[in-house]
């Protein structure tokens, strides 16, 4: 039947939806009820980062073992990650409009970071589509993937820590820090992160099987 972790992901996310809306949360200025977004907006970004990391791991695997299956997984994981970036960006814009007063800003390094990340992976897909030969494409794409991931990681994780940021928990924003989540909120937040990562893995699993089937059909 369906694997246990797929069902678990659905149940966990459902739990985070139901309990996340009923659960009492700290009363904070500016944010009011929208603090509940933490249960939905943040796990999506975690899922995206996870998928990109998965993609890089399989790129490295491909370069060391030279099998096409790793490359297919790497490609599909990057696609899934990019797919998760879309709701992440949209929900972020909506949340920003109501708390910061604007849809987007260029001053916040995290926002710049994710914009760059989206551009990098779009360039990755353009690179993939410009090489017709399979083996060559896999190898070159893997090289670019590794390089791009390192740059992106530096940009998203390291730079925001050093400069001021509008995002809560980084720089000088007093609204709430990542580390003073109410213990009530933690009960929903951590399972939500796991649930969304598992859901992204489910979507990856389906995509990967479709890609492998296509690949096998083309080989015949």
């Amino acid at each position: 039947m369906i694997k246990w972790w797929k069902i678990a992901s659905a149940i966990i996310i459902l739990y985070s939806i139901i309990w996340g809306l009923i659960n009492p949360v700290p009363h904070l200025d500016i944010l009011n009820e929208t603090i509940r977004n933490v249960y939905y907006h943040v796990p999506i970004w975690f899922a995206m980062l996870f998928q990109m990391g998965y993609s890089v791991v399989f790129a490295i695997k491909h370069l060391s073992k030279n099998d096409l299956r790793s490359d297919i997984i790497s490609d599909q994981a990057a696609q899934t990650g990019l797919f998760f970036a879309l709701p992440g960006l949209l929900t972020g814009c909506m949340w920003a409009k109501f708390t910061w007063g604007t849809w987007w800003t260029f001053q916040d390094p995290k926002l710049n970071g994710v914009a760059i990340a989206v551009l990098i992976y779009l360039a990755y897909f353009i690179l993939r589509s410009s090489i017709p030969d399979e083996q060559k494409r896999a190898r070159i794409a893997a090289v670019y993937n590794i390089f791009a991931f390192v740059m992106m990681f530096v940009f998203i994780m390291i730079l925001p820590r050093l400069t001021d940021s509008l995002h809560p928990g980084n720089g000088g924003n007093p609204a709430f820090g990542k580390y003073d989540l109410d213990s009530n909120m933690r009960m929903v937040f951590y399972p939500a992160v796991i649930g969304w990562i598992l859901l992204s893995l489910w979507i990856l699993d389906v995509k990967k099987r479709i890609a492998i089937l296509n690949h096998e059909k083309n080989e015949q």
Partner: protein
Amino acid sequence: MQLLSQLIKKEFLLEFRQKSTLAGILVYIVATVFISALCFKKIIHPTVWNALFWIIFMFIAVNVSSKSFMQETKGKGLFNYLYYNPRQFILSKIIYNMLLMSVLSLLTFFFYSWFVGSMVQDMGMFLLALIFSSSAFSGVLSLMSAIASKANNNISLMAILSFPVLMPLLLVSVKLSKHAIDGLAWSVSYKYLLILIMLNFVVVALATLLFNYLWKE
């Protein structure tokens, strides 16, 4: 080590034999600076000065680095594969590009301050930023042009690949040079300089490691 210096010398010789590429870049620099001088007459705002300078720098960097790998034809490629160690090959290209880029960036800055006027208060910091940025840029762009050359030598592909990856680097460089222009104390800009140096190492290490895999084509 000896082979490395030989390779670098070979790059220099190639460049001086075909003076056209170097001359082309010089004309490009003078032309862009001249146009900006015409349009802006006198730049009052340091931010604008900074932005314009780095835009010109970025385009020059992409142009210079793309030429280094585009010259490798199929025949030369086979020769290179048989005779040279991949690590030394990419290192020689990176070092050559770094030197070239440093010189060209200093030239750009010279022409820029001549035509448009210099607003830099802390010259030492600015020059440091310039040199480290040019080496980091050339490192990234060398690898990108290597990738693009394997994918049918498409110049626009190289631009598409390079721009997003260069963004973090560009941001740090712009911030650092802005601090230098405003003449802020070294203690404030210190962390950016460290990041720039660290990025240099990361980029060169990655490029040398990854080039092995590109080599086999």
